[in-house]
């Protein structure tokens, strides 16, 4: 600044830190160097480069003008972009709020549906359990469990009806009714499941169960308490009838307890007219 600067820089600028250096050495050192040289040899080279200065300044003005113009031009575009972005932000925020509301509604719906699903599942499993019990009882499915197996046969040597040694349909009806009375839960005769609609009849020379002819010996299987069933059977009219049949006519009757009796399902589909009342 004093015009005495040489080609070597003062040492302070090397150690003062970058920012300090920037702040102190603001003037191009060349000005000082050239000024010092001009003092030494005052050759007048003034005016030769004045035109260059004018040109450079014109270029500078051009740059300033162009960049100011560009900034000015791009301002409306930037403002429009900004406005568009702001409106987009607002749109998205409104959408987000709407979606949040919808989310809440849907979550409520979901929890409602889950509650009702739980109820339905519980009701369904109760209904399924009830269906299993009822279809076992109705003979719709095969049943297994402890029970008794009765083997009944005509008296030895008896051939025709009316001799007294032949088992009649009423005898079998009485026996089956006695078993039901004694607490049997499922009964089959010669492998045919007895249901509420099963008939036991006498047709021609044979007893029919649901119009299927049977021939002796008759195997009657019943599921129930194997310890209590035989004794209770004897107390029923059917049981007493068979006691009399055995002692009076020699009809063979043998009862065996079993821990596992299998009774098949009733294969016929009987309900053609009846539907559950109150069902849709």
């Amino acid at each position: 600044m004093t015009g005495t600067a040489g080609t070597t820089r003062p040492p302070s600028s090397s150690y003062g830190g970058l920012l300090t250096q920037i702040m102190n050495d603001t003037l191009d050192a060349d000005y000082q160097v050239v000024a010092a040289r001009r003092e030494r040899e005052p050759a007048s080279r003034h005016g030769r480069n004045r035109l260059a200065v004018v040109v450079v300044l014109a270029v500078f003005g051009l740059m300033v003008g162009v960049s100011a113009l560009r900034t000015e031009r791009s301002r409306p575009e930037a403002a429009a972009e900004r406005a568009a972005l702001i409106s987009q932000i607002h749109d998205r925020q409104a959408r987000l709020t709407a979606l949040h509301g919808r989310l809440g509604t849907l979550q409520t719906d979901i929890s409602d549906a889950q509650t009702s699903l739980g109820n339905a599942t519980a009701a369904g499993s109760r209904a399924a359990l009830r269906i299993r019990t009822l279809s076992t009882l109705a003979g719709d499915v095969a049943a297994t469990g402890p029970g008794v197996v009765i083997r009944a046969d005509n008296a030895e040597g008896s051939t025709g009806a009316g001799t007294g040694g032949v088992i009649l349909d009423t005898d079998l009806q009485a026996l089956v009714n006695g078993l039901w009375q004694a607490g049997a839960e499922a009964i089959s005769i010669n492998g045919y499941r007895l249901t509420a609609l099963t008939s036991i009849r006498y047709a021609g020379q044979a007893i029919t169960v649901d119009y299927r002819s049977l021939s002796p010996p008759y195997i009657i299987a019943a599921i129930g308490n194997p310890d209590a069933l035989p004794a209770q059977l004897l107390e029923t009219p059917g049981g007493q009838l068979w006691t009399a049949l055995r002692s009076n006519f020699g009809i063979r009757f043998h009862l065996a307890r079993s821990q596992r009796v299998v009774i098949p399902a009733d294969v016929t589909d009987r309900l053609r007219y009846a539907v559950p009342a109150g069902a849709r």
Partner: protein
Amino acid sequence: MIVLFGLAIGIVAGFFFEPTVPTGLQPYLPIAVVAALDAVFGGLRAHLDGIFDDKVFVVSFISNVLIAALIVYLGDQLGVGGQLSTGVIVVLGIRIFSNVAAIRRHIFHA
């Protein structure tokens, strides 16, 4: 005064003829303007110090503009263009402020 006339001519030409800047150079124009501003204030201060030299001014102007644009270009290639632009503007801004302070001292003797 002819110097100020040149400046005025440049500005007017810039506004009226609207020369199109090549798209490749457009990002460097603002930095170049700041660098040129630094050179112009440096020249003005030298003028007030009485040591103004035409050749030094022309050279410092051109080299300032070129180096500033080059640094920013280099930063763009390296992926730190924004940061380097900020650095260049900070340094040039400090120099401009200091020079303007010196000019103010000359004018107001304060």
